[in-house]
């Protein structure tokens, strides 16, 4: 017994040394996402998409056996930081993904980078990491936080809307959305309203929109706020009076539960469930078959993370322990078939991709879905790449 106790640190040290020289025999992926609480719908969607994609790949990435470790971040930066540290130190994950919210992501990225663990974001894409704090260890396989708002601004400019009102919650992502929108909207922003996060009653804002005499209104109201606003907007008899434009998440699964109130509303995003490419057709068919619901844009992004890792691991022949080569393979994304069609990384490792207009339509089955209208921006990068020092 005593001898064994004496020997075990030695054995552990030997095991560690051999791990450094030997090729990895598996790849560990940490999925840190929001699975409980009111804000968990996107996280649950992403977890489901990742689980399904892995199952269809026979639980292998690029031929290398893969282990998924899924953890709930509880929508809390503190809890996320602790969970991430466990994933990094104890489980020794190779890749971290799944984070939905920017404030959570910003809390876990520094320790992941310090640990030389690759982060492939499946949703959050904060400006700081796209710009000054860009890192070879960080990839965004979704979109920079401003992108869909920029596309909405561009769309409304193209449509010739002259007078527009904007509503976004008074918190960082709300302000970012307004900044992104303004960057590409060339008309006049007549009214800007920033209600507090989680506001219940929007009667005052609706009255302002009515009196401001605008051509159209752009609103970014995540979570329940969007549903609240839309129900009250309809009750005030406004639905057909003033055109509305959203970004994709404001017309996603949660809002489609009140689809009849947003029928015909155009919204902008990099993906739509009816996109005509092989990868997407397979994704939508498999997801609908497995879960009995049409996938959201969140699910599409998570699915793409798995696809991206699959080609990258294959392209390095499973030698993921050579981090530089692995990073280069992810960056090149050679042979990666994204469900959104064309996809490549800019030098800050954020996507350069098309942004599309989609429209809320009633399907043949009576359910509401987004249908593709057409591209609004082609090969669109982000505004922060100039601040990134990476080559």
């Amino acid at each position, binding site marked *: 017994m005593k001898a064994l106790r004496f020997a075990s640190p030695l054995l552990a040290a030997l095991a560690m040394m051999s791990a450094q020289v030997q090729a990895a025999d598996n790849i560990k992926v940490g999925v840190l996402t929001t699975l*409980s*609480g*009111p*804000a*968990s*719908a996107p996280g*649950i969607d992403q977890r489901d998409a990742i689980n399904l994609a892995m199952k269809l790949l026979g639980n292998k990435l690029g031929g290398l056996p893969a282990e998924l470790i899924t953890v709930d971040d509880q929508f809390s930066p503190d809890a996320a930081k602790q969970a991430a540290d466990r994933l990094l130190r104890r489980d020794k994950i190779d890749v971290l993904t799944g984070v939905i919210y920017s404030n959570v992501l910003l809390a876990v990225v520094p320790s992941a980078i310090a640990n030389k663990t690759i982060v492939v974001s499946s949703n959050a894409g904060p400006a700081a990491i796209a710009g000054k704090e860009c890192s070879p260890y960080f990839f965004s396989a979704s979109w920079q936080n401003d992108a869909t708002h920029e596309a909405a601004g561009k769309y409304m400019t193209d449509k010739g809307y002259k007078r527009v009102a904007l509503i976004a919650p*008074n918190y960082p992502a709300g*302000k970012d959305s307004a900044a992104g929108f303004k960057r590409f909207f060339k008309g006049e922003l007549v009214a*800007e*309203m*920033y*209600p*507090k996060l*989680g*506001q*219940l*009653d929007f*009667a*005052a*804002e609706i*009255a*302002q929109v*009515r*009196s401001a005499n605008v051509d159209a209104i752009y609103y970014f109201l995540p*979570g*329940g*706020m*969007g*549903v*609240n606003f839309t*129900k*009250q907007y*309809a*009750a*005030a*008899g406004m639905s057909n009076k003033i055109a509305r434009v959203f970004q994709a998440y404001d017309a996603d*699964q*949660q809002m489609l*539960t*009140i689809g009849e109130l947003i029928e015909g509303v155009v919204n902008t995003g990099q993906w739509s469930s009816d996109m005509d490419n092989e990868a997407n057709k397979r994704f939508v068919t498999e997801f609908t078959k497995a879960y009995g619901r049409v996938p959201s844009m969140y699910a599409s992004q998570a699915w793409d993370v798995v696809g991206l890792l699959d080609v990258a691991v294959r392209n390095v022949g499973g030698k993921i322990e050579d981090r530089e080569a692995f990073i280069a393979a992810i960056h090149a994304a050679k042979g990666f078939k994204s469900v959104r069609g064309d996809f490549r990384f800019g030098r800050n490792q954020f996507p350069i991709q098309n942004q599309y207009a989609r429209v809320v339509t009633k399907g043949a089955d009576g359910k509401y879905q987004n249908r593709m209208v057409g591209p609004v921006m082609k090969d669109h990068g982000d505004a922060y790449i100039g601040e990134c020092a990476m080559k």
Partner: protein
Amino acid sequence: MSTLILEQTLNGLQFSVTLFLIAAGLTLVFGVMNFVNLAHGSLFMVGAYFAAWFAGMAGSFWLGLLCALPATAAVGVALEVLILRRLYAKDHMVHVLATFALILIFNDLVRIVWGPLPLPLNMPAALSGAINLGPVPYSSFRLVIMLVGSLVGVLLWLLVTRTRMGMWVRAGANNREMAVAMGVNVKQLYTLVFGFGVVLSALAGAMLGPFVAVEAGMGDDVLILAFVVVVIGGIGSVQGAAAGALIVGVVDTLGRTALPALLGSLLSPTVASSLGAALGSMMIYLVMVLVLFWRPSGLFPART
């Protein structure tokens, strides 16, 4: 401009009535039982869920509302008898911890039972449009909410000031030991008051359901507003809740609308909109601070 002012005044009043509906139950429970019930917002949510569920099955909003009230009351009374009753003798910190846990449990329970997406709950078709009040088209359902809220206010006032049960409630709120000494069955009274408070919050949830997303966590934002109203009005007082609701509703609406406009005439539009928004969301808390500064136990304290 004058029509906008008229409309915003109406909005302020309507919001006040909504707040009163939400806060009335809380103030009764808080005042009579000296029990801090953070789960009040959860029962608001359960009420909305029941209303949406029953309305979906029955195909009628009013039927859904009617079934939701006793169903939520049953949940509330079960909660009181099984759990909360044991906590009354403990201090406020225990109340807060236990009922905060209940918030988390309820949020995940409704998600397990009804799924993560919001339940549809539509207002009755006859009331779904807007009617013209002079030059202002105003949502008819909002007018119904105002009507229901005002009726509840009057009934509650009559109940508390004109009936025997109301007398017990006032006695309980004013001096508990003395009420017990005079032979009031406090155990029964507490269950009754708690059940009644739950019915009020369920009514608020069901009435507001068509206007908001019926989803897990919908009660959390409501709870904070309800506490502000109760604290401004004076704990345990129905008149206080009415006054507090009126102040918060009007101040909040004005703060959100007039303040950015006012600042807009002085500052650049971008600065005005962000500063106005920040100040607007702070207004009700500033008012609360002011009220508590002059009257530390609220405008109409029940306990003297």
